[in-house]
């Protein structure tokens, strides 16, 4: 279980976190929704070690993540797909994927090969153009590549920061579908941050609503989706 307790992070005036606590169940999809500037990205960046919190704790399978370096957190099985199709455009598609598996080469060389092959099965669009620079990809393909880069490290929990941002609905559907399948079939734990609340709540088991850095609702996704007044108050629709 990913457990976040009393997490406070100072950032710009908005998008800070104020005493946030919730947890994400293993093997389930938990989504964090909220308006722009609610602190959703800050939350994921803090879990990944890119930002240091002022106070509070983040534990994954009972080990404390606060104070660990980002690369160590990845090695502990917590992988982040940051906002905005985070791939390295100068590298080829194959290199971007391999990059995510580099740290496992020494210990599990054969599994790395398998994992890379699996990524191409999962995202066939990428398989045809392995040697092409990833700058040639479309926005949706880049997002897939970013997810593949995170997945190839065989994480136990995947943190996704607004994967639907700027993408066509059809592609969003494909990407979210793949994530859902991974969760249901292979037991991947997912923490999905979304501004697009409907899409997220449709696939999620559990939902956390964040507003101005505070948790205002923490309940099953179904309930949250049904609560019209809450959504109108915090999301505007």
């Amino acid at each position, binding site marked *: 279980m990913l457990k976040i307790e009393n997490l406070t992070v100072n950032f710009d005036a908005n998008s800070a976190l104020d005493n946030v606590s919730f947890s994400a169940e293993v093997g389930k999809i938990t989504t964090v929704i909220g308006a722009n500037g609610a602190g959703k990205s800050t939350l994921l960046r803090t879990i990944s070690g890119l930002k240091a919190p002022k106070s509070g704790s983040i534990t994954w399978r009972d080990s404390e993540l606060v104070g660990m370096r980002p690369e160590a957190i990845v090695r502990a099985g917590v992988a982040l797909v940051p906002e905005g199709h*985070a791939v390295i455009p100068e590298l080829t598609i194959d290199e971007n994927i391999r*990059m995510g598996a*580099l740290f496992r080469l020494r210990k599990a060389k054969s599994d790395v090969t398998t994992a890379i092959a699996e990524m191409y099965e999962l995202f066939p669009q990428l398989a045809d153009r392995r040697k092409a620079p990833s700058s040639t990809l479309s926005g949706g393909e880049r997002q897939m590549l970013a997810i593949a880069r*995170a997945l190839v490290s065989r994480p136990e929990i995947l943190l996704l920061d607004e994967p639907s941002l700027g993408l066509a609905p059809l592609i969003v559907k494909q990407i979210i579908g793949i994530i859902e399948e991974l969760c249901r079939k292979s037991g991947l734990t997912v923490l999905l941050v979304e501004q697009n609340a409907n899409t997220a709540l449709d696939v999620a088991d559990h939902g956390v609503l964040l507003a101005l850095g505070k948790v205002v609702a923490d309940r099953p996704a179904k309930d949250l989706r049904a609560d019209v007044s809450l959504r109108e108050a915090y999301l505007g629709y």
Partner: protein
Amino acid sequence: MQTFLTALFTGTSHGAIYALVALGLVLVWRGAGLINFAQMGQAMFSAYIASTIINHHINYWWAFIVAIIAGGALGGAIDVLVIRPLKKKSGSSILSSPSMRDAIPVIASLGILGILQSAAGMIWAGEERGFPAPVSTLGLSIGKRAMPFTRFDIFVIVLIWLILIATTLLLNKTSVGLAMRASALNMEVARLSGIRTRSIRTLGWILSGSLASVAGLMVAPATNVSPNSLDLLMIIGFTACVIGGLNSLWGSVTGAFILGLTISFINIYDAPGDVFLGIFAILIAVMIFRPSGLFAKGKARNV
């Protein structure tokens, strides 16, 4: 014709040495975002160590290997002892502005250069020492014809091309190389991929230091070894990077060969005194028309 060929060969052989210096500078630049002005100081220091070994009648190649290791070790030490603590200070007010964040480490490297040079002076009395070449530096003749190049020229060109190719292969074909490129291009994504970017950066410093040491040993037979003997090489190598574009590895190497040839032709056809004016003219021309270097892709790293 003979003069022309001599200029051509000397230029190529010197250009190859400059290329090595430029390569070392680019490796650190891309990894750590600074120009390491101490680089040839490290090389000078290791050349003194090598010369001490050779003076004890130990084989040249042992000295060669020790110098390469020493250059790399100095590079790694600078990263760990100076650059890492510097990066931690990023909260201080003067480092809050991006232009200063880039300038301060450069100034630190100038300080390190001063330390290395004066330390060499104190240890080795600042004496100018001759330095042997592994093969003959005298004019080569095949049959009765005197060739416009020496055995050493050929040795330098071959050795350095091998190193350039090996470095390119290392960067492009190996996992470590991928990690180095990824860390240089986008540190955050690299870290999120589990790459230990700090160690990778130190590796870049080590590699750069070793390359610089090789370059230092290759010019030492001509320049001798003294605390300041490699300053010129540093400046030319740096200018090569600026001309070629710091972000392009092969751009800087090309810049180095351009400079090598320019200097050699000025030396032979004009006067050695004009060398710096020539370099300055080329530099200014490139900076006016291509402010980020001849081979820069897009905009230069915004500093």
